[in-house]
């Protein structure tokens, strides 16, 4: 019941990539310490009344005044702060991704602002200070639970500065989405054998295979064995062998070859294969039911393939 109510309240919030904290979306309540302080003040007041201590009244009211002011200061510590979230890079399901939240402050200095996930545990909060007229950036870690185009989880921004008697917080639903690839299968079987350019769209670009291995600058995704180590040692630059041999032997990654009953498991295996092909710099064609990507070099092909895997069964035309 409680969680349903919470979900209902959460769903009423608009999604937005920048979130201006105003009185309308900031909440404030006394903390447990606040109630404790209230109790202390009451006891102090009783003692002052009973012993007719004017100085005791003075002290009690001084602290009471400070507590009241601290309520406004706690609220003011978040009010008029502007939060932005950066569109996050794609990640794999189950691995933790880092999201960047920027706190933009056009006013005075703010202290002890805590950011965390709404459904996460209370202890996992990242604290930061924001300088006056400045910005602060907070990295939040999030492990996407599944693949797909996911909404970012709801963020809670809270503060109990300065006295910890009150906690003010806001609940923010970022509008940004995150592309989450399926989790690659650990210890996946090796890539399917080369199909020898069987779809004919990838002719032997450089004549007879194995005739000449050129060199080129290192590109991300090049396998270690592709590096021309002698040249690397001599020049200090990373240089890869243009492995025409492997490039010409285009392979085909096909959902039909994955051979697993469970759809998600099959997608995981395909993901692992795509990654493997990318690591080896393979030219590959990619086939999912309803999608047929012709053979292309791994660096171009992999993002598309991974996106298709993330979104399947929604089909994305390349």
């Amino acid at each position: 019941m409680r969680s349903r109510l919470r979900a209902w309240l959460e769903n009423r919030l608009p999604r937005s990539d920048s979130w201006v904290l105003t009185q309308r979306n900031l909440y404030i309540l006394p903390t447990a310490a606040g109630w404790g302080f209230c109790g202390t003040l009451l006891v102090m007041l009783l003692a002052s009344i009973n012993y007719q201590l004017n100085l005791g009244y003075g002290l009690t009211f001084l602290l009471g005044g400070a507590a009241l002011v601290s309520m406004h200061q706690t609220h003011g510590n978040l009010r008029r702060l502007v939060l932005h979230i950066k569109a996050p890079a794609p990640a794999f399901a189950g691995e933790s991704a880092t999201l960047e939240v920027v706190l933009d402050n056009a006013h005075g200095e703010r202290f002890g602002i805590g950011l965390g996930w709404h459904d996460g545990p209370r202890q996992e909060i990242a604290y930061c200070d924001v300088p006056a007229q400045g910005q602060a950036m907070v990295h939040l870690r999030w492990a996407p639970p599944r693949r797909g185009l996911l909404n970012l989880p709801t963020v809670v921004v809270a503060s109990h500065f300065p006295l910890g008697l009150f906690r003010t917080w806001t609940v923010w639903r970022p509008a940004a989405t995150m592309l989450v690839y399926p989790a690659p299968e650990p210890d996946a079987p090796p890539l399917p054998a080369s199909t020898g350019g069987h779809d004919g769209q990838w002719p032997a670009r450089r004549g007879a295979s194995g005739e000449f291995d050129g060199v080129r600058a290192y590109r991300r995704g090049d396998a270690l064995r592709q590096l021309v180590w002698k040249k690397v040692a001599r020049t200090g630059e990373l240089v890869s062998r243009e492995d025409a041999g492997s490039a010409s032997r285009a392979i085909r990654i096909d959902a039909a070859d994955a051979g697993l009953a469970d759809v998600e498991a099959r997608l995981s295996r395909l993901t692992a294969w795509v990654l493997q092909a990318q690591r080896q710099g393979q030219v590959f064609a990619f086939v999912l039911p309803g999608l047929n990507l012709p053979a292309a070099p791994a660096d171009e092909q992999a993002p598309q393939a991974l996106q298709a895997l993330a979104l399947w069964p929604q089909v994305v035309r390349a």
Partner: protein
Amino acid sequence: MIETSSLPAASPWAWRQWPRETRDVLFLLAVVAWITAPHFAHVPLWCSTLTCVVLIWRAQLALVQGKLPARWMVVGVLVLAVALTAYTQRSLMGKEAGLTLLVLLVALKTLELRARRDAMVVFFLGFFIVLTQCFYSQSLASALGMVVAAWGLLTALVMANMPVGRPALARAAGIAARTSLLGLPVMAALFLLFPRIGPLWGLPQDAQGRSGLSGTLRMGGVADLAMDDTIAFRVRFKGPPPPSEALYFRGPVLTRFDGQEWQASLFATDRDPSRPLDLRITGTPVRYEMLLEPPRMALIPLLEATPMLPTFDPPLVDDTPWFGRDMMWRTERPVMMRLHLTAQAWPHHALGVTPNLRELQASRFLPTGFNPRTLAWAQALRERLGPVDERTVAAALMAHISQANYVYTLQPGLYGNDAIDSFWLDRREGFCEHYASAFVVIMRALGVPARIVTGYQGAEQPDADGYRVVRQSHAHAWAEYWVPGAGWQRADPTAAVAPERVRTSRALVAPPGLVAGALQSMNPALLARLRQAWELMDSRWSQWVMTYSRGDQFDLLKKVGVKEPDWADVSRALVIVFSAAAVAGAAWAAWDRRRQDPWQRLQRRLCKRLQGVGVPASAHLGPRALAELVRQVHGEAGQALATLLEDLERQRYAPGGQRLPGRQWWPQVARALRRLPNR
């Protein structure tokens, strides 16, 4: 923040290199030491020692960043402390026992600073301990000490809520000060208007713990008081002040003597209206004003003889003092508040001219078996003097004291069982109570009714406001003996041995402390002046702030036009003030919410008007886009409006241009809009 690494390693500012955890804990420990130290005078020695040990241990742990002791250990120490409290205080209830436990608890809690919650417990206990200092003193000095303590605690609290980095202590202290200062109006309103209601329940008996005078007298009792330099009250005379040697402020009269201890007369509290007090006054009265620190006893020491009820301002709440047969003013309950009163005294008076036989009987009684040598000495005196009247006997005794090498000293040492024998005949060293009790015992031995009167004698020189300070060190004991036809006569045997004690009102002075002594020897005048200035401030503080009470609240309301205010009016005023503040706050919040950029306001206004003429304007469109839309919808008819909108665009985005259009722009737009057909 201070760049710590740039400091040399051997810098005297080593604390700057402590890790934040160490520094914060040490700061908190210093604050805890500051708030518990004033209590060391009131808690048993073992408690203060244990507190110090625990605090030092914790500080050491913080410095070496060692592991905190296990919980069972802390609980063990706590159990031991509770047991010791129960043993030394004979109870776990009551103020003293509670305070002992509280001081220990806060010290022990510092050994357990694991989570935020633990720190919070220290803060809350700390605030309460700060408050308990008011039980002992509400002077300006203790108020300043409490402000420092509260500031320190708030600073530590702010520090606990700044989780990032290593904020400078001064920064946190600044934030704490700012928070408290902003809260001052709230404090002032509450202080002025919070209804002062009487005690909610009966005060525990231990509230009488400290007093200027005790109701009993035992050799040595007044010596302790004499060391106490705190202020008992201040007095100001209207008209010429009486000489110092006539300033006797009357406290309890002690009649019953059991050989060791003097106790109050049983007749003094007789309120039977059929036996009125026989007090005859003559001459002109002396009018005076008094500002009493809370006497914490059920009595008010007034100048001899003040037979008429003083005027209390603020009035005493549901307690009317009454005049006892011993000429002392009593109250029903111990007076726990400061008193401000005006009264009249008649220096020329005769008390108890009509003999009250039972009272006289009691005033002649001597227990058998005590001080035999003094009694023998008295008999010898009687034989030497022959049949003379009481006054002659008293004069002979005074003459004996001034001639027989008696010494006035505050450190006479301990006297044994027959204290008066060894004082009067052997050592001859003592102060007022020794002389007074010896005098009374000898008078009684000679058959003259006599009794001890305790109170205060003398006063200091007037300060700038004309108030003369009377300290606890002015506590005094003198004697009264009864003369047929003349009543009770005052005799101050101390005046015979140390006339300056009475004549120049020099208070009983204990040897000065180290610092005061050094200052005194360097520049006594400066010390005296500093002290005078401080006491003047203290006097004003207690006069204006600490005696603030229900009467002052009523006066305040009268000033703003409330006729005959009562406490309900005071509460109402408080509610009104806070409601007004809340309404003002809400109004500000509403205004703050609507407050927006003038440009945005203009744009919203424009959109609304354009939608009125059928242009699908929305807030995210710039003026140029709006102009485009106007042209699309209205064609040639919208040309004027579109031009105006393009003007706006140019004005807004031109380099160095104004952000907002001039004053004529909006009327032009309105005119152009009116010319368009409504859709």
